[in-house]
């Protein structure tokens, strides 16, 4: 069983705010699931020599006009901004006065 601290730590790593009761239920659920998926540890060491078939497929660098991909759709993108000022998306200052 993973500890409550581990659950809190995972939540911090995953940037998720959890409710109080949720820590206990996640502790139980995640432990159960980890016990189940832990079956893979039975897999023999030789198997780890297997190389995946997946590979990166790269495309050629080709120059495009600025704003090409969004041309004509700027307003749709702006409309999704959580807080908007004119054409700009308002974001929080990274370094704040009190820090």
């Amino acid at each position, binding site marked *: 069983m*993973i500890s409550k601290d581990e*659950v809190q730590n*995972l*939540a*911090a*790593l*995953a*940037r*998720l*705010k*959890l*409710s109080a009761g*949720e820590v206990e239920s*996640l502790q139980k*659920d*995640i432990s*159960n*699931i*980890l016990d*189940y*998926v*832990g*079956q*893979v*540890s*039975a*897999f023999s060491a030789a*198997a*780890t*020599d*297997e*190389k*995946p*078939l*997946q590979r*990166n*497929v*790269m*495309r050629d660098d080709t120059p495009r006009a600025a704003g090409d991909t*969004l041309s004509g*759709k700027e307003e*749709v*993108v702006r*409309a*999704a*901004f*959580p*807080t908007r000022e004119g054409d700009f*998306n308002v*974001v*929080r200052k*990274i370094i*704040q006065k009190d820090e």
Partner: protein
Amino acid sequence: MSNLNELSITEASKKLAAGEVTSLQLTEACLAEIEKRNGSLNAYLEVFADAREQAKAADSRRAAGESHPLLGIPLAVKDNILIEGRTASAASKMLEHYVATYDATAIKKLKEAGVVFLGRTNMDEFAMGGSNENSAFGPAKNPHDESRVTGGSSGGSAAVVAAHMALGALGSDTGGSVREPAAFCGVVGFKPTYGAVSRSGLMAMGSSLDQIGPLTKTVADAELLFNAICGVDPLDSTTVQLPAAKADNKKIGVPRALLAQGIEPEVLAQFDQALKKLQMQGYEIVDISLPSAGLALAVYYIIMPAESSTNLARFDGVRYGLSIKGETLLDDYATSRGEGFGPEVRRRIMLGTYVLSAGYYDAYFGKATAAREVLRKEFSAALAEVSAIATPTAPFPAWKIGEKSDPLSAYLADIFTVTANLTGNPAVSVPMGTVARDGADLPVGIQLTAAHGDEATLFSIGKALE
């Protein structure tokens, strides 16, 4: 056939070509059925207000001389596939008001063909679940018994096809999300070979597992839709044209050792009936061994959460989606994500974070990746001997809404479907009769898996089962 909405795509297509019906009539018939049943089934999250206009446009295109088998066919689309200018929420509060800025490649192709989009269908939030109970907007209900789940995650798409509220639908399949709801609702669900259909414009869940696939009334319809959406796409570098390296015989392999436990006896009885039907049509049923297949579910529930937690890291409330301000910037992220994602999505993000964290990576993700390659080789070896592998699609029929409260017990529904996503093989679920539960006849499905690129074999065996 009395009602136009009950036609298959293939039948409707013939009638459209012959001038016996118009797209507007087909669309009106579906909308009338939606009016009757969607209130209780909750299968559509939104019915598009311009469906009739789309149908009229399709009729004009036909009048102007255009012809495509899908021109004027009314279809439904899962809520995680982007249609420009329309809401795409992935059944999540995180994206409740999100409007798509471009068309998914599959949608672009269907628009060119002249399809009418009726609406967007309910699903498990971000495609995470096998029952549609994880939707932020309430579960879709099974048309065969409304107290039961539709299966998932493409539950709404399966329900609208089963209830004749659309002639067909698109879903997405990461671990069985097209096939399992198709089995539970009694329709055909098809997952193409990984790389056959572009993932551009499909909200990413497990990028190495995801495929868009059709849910339809017949195997011929699934083939028609698949042929319309497949193809290499510069916007998805994993799309490939695969030469089918297939066994040229009429042998179907059954991994009997895998079916020895955990399957409800009536499901197994229907499965054996389906195999008999195939035998009578000249197929030879042989026993095959897939020694590592028993590990597939464990492998899947490591790889999928790892990829999902990575893909869902983009939702931070800064540029789009739910945004809740906290005390600090970090707080903004954590609060937006905490409130925006539902319990199952949070659980999988946490699980993915765990299996990818330093110290656990080798024990979980490393082992799972290696096991995945072994599985792929076992499937390739088996499919060099037989044309297809058959199993039930799920070990049991649709369960009662709320019955499986423990997440792990719900994951077990995916035991036969996840393997094709791990190995990239194409797989289809075809109805194989019903089993009786509490006075209702609940559909069950048979799953067939073929070699990479050999969708043709699945279509021909599927048709033999109908």
